[in-house]
């Protein structure tokens, strides 16, 4: 009985978001990995990160098994010059969302161990600043142009 009550209390606390881990507050939508052209050693993973909690959350690390290295990156458009740079973390504001998309923030898969196939699923683990983590299943998608019928961002 005691057990049940404490379990209930924990559940209530969690649902109130008081002690909820970042991983519980963050939901991931439309994750995908862009199919790397033949011979290209790296590619990006993109997704929408939503934070339902009332605390800002940071993604501090990403890992996957398909590439030797996984990094968090962004692109800076410096007067027309596109510069890709690693970032320490990706912020998701409380009750907000952060979009990882081509030309901007992305999870970078570097040194692919084997050529990837369209339709493969890449498990990516995101680690948050409170130490909690979340596994994301990202499908490998052939790149398409924005606004085209196959555009991945438009569904």
């Amino acid at each position, binding site marked *: 009985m005691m057990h049940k009550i404490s379990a209930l209390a924990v559940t209530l606390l969690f649902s109130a978001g008081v002690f909820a881990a970042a991983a519980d507050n963050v939901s991931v939508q439309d994750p995908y990995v862009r199919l*790397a052209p033949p011979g290209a050693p*790296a590619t990006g993973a993109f997704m929408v990160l939503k934070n339902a909690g009332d605390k800002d959350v940071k993604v501090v690390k990403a890992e996957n098994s398909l590439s030797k290295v996984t990094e968090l990156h962004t692109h800076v458009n410096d007067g027309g*010059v596109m510069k890709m740079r690693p970032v320490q973390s990706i912020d998701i504001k409380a009750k907000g969302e952060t979009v990882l998309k081509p030309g901007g923030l992305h999870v970078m898969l570097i040194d692919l161990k084997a050529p990837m196939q369209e339709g493969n699923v890449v498990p990516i683990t995101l680690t948050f600043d409170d130490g909690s983590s979340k596994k994301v299943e990202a499908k490998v998608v052939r790149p398409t142009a924005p606004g085209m019928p196959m555009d991945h961002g438009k569904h």
Partner: protein
Amino acid sequence: MSQRILLAIAVALGLLVIGLGLFWNPGQPETTVSPRGGDFTLQSADGPVSLSAFRGKVVLLYFGYTYCPDICPTSLVRTAAALNLLKPEEASRVVTLLVSVDPERDTLAHLKEYVTFFHPGMVGLTSSQAEVAAVAKQYGAFYAKHQTGSAAGYVVDHTADVYLIGTDGVLKERLPHVATPEQMVAAIRERLSVQ
């Protein structure tokens, strides 16, 4: 009296037209470099390629590199989508060239395989560092190697515009990285219609 006003308006309009003609140049890129374009010869997996060989065709010229994980694929996918929107008889008069600004890592064979992934008609070109730099300068493209300290080794920061060269071999305009396939098609058609 009203005639004077009319005359004043006419003069003002005339000055405006002259001013626009002098200073308003929509095709001019915004950077400090003013590219003149012009002919060049670079290497492809199938031998040397000169721009002058494509006289009578519209040429889309892009500077990038195959290790480019995001920006180049995005641009090339857009370009390929534009090519696919053209009618076959139009597409047959359009050539797309990717000049690799990373000859250190991009072999010709690799480059060919890379561009073909996006569109069968694309041609991958490169050459020595010096020759690539000369062509980039000619067109006002900028690139610079940057050590990120990441496992990706170095990245190459670069401008990501598409240079549109008319059927006469002359650089016409610079399409921004964010140009949609539809905007590219409109620009290509405009140049195709000029013989």
